[in-house]
């Protein structure tokens, strides 16, 4: 089972992101379960959503406390919320930022985790460019697809078109594809550095 925890703020599409990811995985013939953190969410308040992906029926209903991947939609949550709780050294992290882990004060995390599993992506900028709204969720899903290989980008595209219709769906897919390429390029740099 692959478990994803998404952190963001109310209004950033955190719950929608987990749902879209579950739909994308389902379209690839996998079992998936997405659910929100069940709060009285308000715009701007910290929000958490969860997604599980597996090849067999998912029975558990507990919140994800030991994620395989953490997606952070809003950097202002760093040092405010225990974002990396339960994440081990092989875990994946994707952060919506154009800064580095060290610049964000996450040098310690960067040291204990695999460098090819820690990626950043300027998802809000990509969303503004392609969608026209500062909602980073779709772009981050593209980055997630590149980083983890859990779902292909075309399945993310299907989920986006299902949810938002052809026009807005395509725009979101453009943001997701740009993020996918961005993260893929970053990964090549890291693996190149490792090869050197």
């Amino acid at each position, binding site marked *: 089972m692959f478990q994803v925890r998404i952190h963001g703020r109310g209004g950033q599409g955190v719950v929608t992101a*987990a*749902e879209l990811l*579950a*739909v994308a995985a*389902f*379209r690839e013939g996998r*079992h*998936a*379960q*997405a*659910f*929100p953190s*069940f709060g*009285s969410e308000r715009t701007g308040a910290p929000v958490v959503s969860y997604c599980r992906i597996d090849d067999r029926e*998912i*029975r*558990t*209903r*507990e919140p994800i406390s030991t994620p395989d991947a953490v997606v952070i939609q809003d950097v202002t949550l760093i040092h405010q919320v225990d974002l990396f709780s339960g994440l081990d050294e092989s875990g994946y992290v994707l952060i919506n930022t154009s800064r580095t882990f060290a610049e964000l004060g996450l040098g310690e995390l960067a040291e204990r985790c695999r460098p090819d599993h820690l990626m950043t992506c300027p998802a809000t900028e990509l969303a503004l460019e392609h969608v026209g709204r500062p909602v980073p969720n779709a772009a981050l899903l593209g980055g997630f697809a590149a980083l983890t290989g859990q779902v292909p980008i075309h399945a993310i595209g299907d989920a986006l078109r299902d949810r938002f219709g052809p026009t807005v769906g395509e725009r979101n897919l453009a943001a997701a594809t740009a993020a996918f390429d961005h993260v893929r390029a970053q990964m090549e740099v890291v693996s190149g550095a490792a090869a050197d």
Partner: protein
Amino acid sequence: MLQQIEGSHAIAESVARCRPEVVCAYPISPQTHIIEAIGVMVKEGALAPCEFINVESEFAAMSVSIGASAAGARAYTATASQGLLFMIEAVYNAAGLGLPIVMTLANRAIGAPINIWNDHSDAMAVRDSGWIQLFAETNQEAADLHVQAFRLAEELSVPVMVCMDGFILTHAVEGVDLLDQEQVDGFLPPYEPRQVLDPEDPVSIGAMVGPEAFEEVRYLAHLRQLDALDRIPEIAAEFAAMSGRDSGGLVRPYRLEDAETVIVAMGSVLGTIKDAVDERRDAGERLGVLGITSFRPFPLEAVRQALAGRARVIVVEKAFSLGMGGVLATDVAMAIGTTTLHTVVAGLGGRPITRTALLDMLERARSGRLDPLSFLDLDEGVIARERARMATVRRSGPFAENVLRDLGRPREDPA
């Protein structure tokens, strides 16, 4: 068709395919998405003919459902938590009148302190109301149970509440295989009421029933709950034959064969419990699980059989009775049984409890003829005659009125 869908939307789709004619509800978390989705379907004409009635409160929502059902319409509503408490007087009326309304309860805690999250306190608050209460483990089962609920409710003329864990199920996006319209139409016949407000054939529903008949009317309602104990597994079997899916029924056993310890629970927590049990089974521990799907009527016999001879029974429940303890556990204890305890229901609705009746009861106890559950001074003749009427004609009419008329009729045999 199997689709990845939010639990609430799956329920809305499933309910829509049951062709409700009147939907009246008031929004409350975590039920809101269900009602919103049905409202959209009615407005867009996807669910027709159906009237979606906006009201000012849950009390009105259940009252309108009662009126719609009494007028012969298939009626549906949904609520949770404080909303259920606000409609509770009408909830009892729906059951007491025998109106087959189906209601989704998106289980949520009751305040104070105010809390919007899931537990089963709301369902427990109305467990004695006379509604059938079915608990869903997954969104798939919740969707399937609604189709079975309409069938069960209308056959027996008893309202059915489908309980599903708020947020944990209602807000989870997961795979649900929804029946198509033809399948539902084949399984669920058009509503044929036992009683209906019809100007061509007028009846009154909702009579005042005094001490002379109240116990009998209540007992008739109890018998319908016992009828449900037979019909719930039969309907689940028919559903399985039609859909290929095993959902519903009275209880759901898991790895019970050689289990020394059995965990009993209701609702979505069963999935997490099964994972934990599998893990300890792998380590050699003999554990099993018994899910309770039908909480009311409570399947005493099925639970007794499933738990007989176990070394330990652990009830995990999302509610408790303050000052006492477990609610489900108390029912499970009754199922496991004791030879020394007898329940005698007496004095309902002002029925006098007489010394003669008590002496007769004590004599039966002394001679070993007192059942585990009995009703003091029950007029079995009037019960038998109403049951016979129900067996003969589908539109047997309002049962409280029937009992009153029966008691008022001159006896051919005055003995």
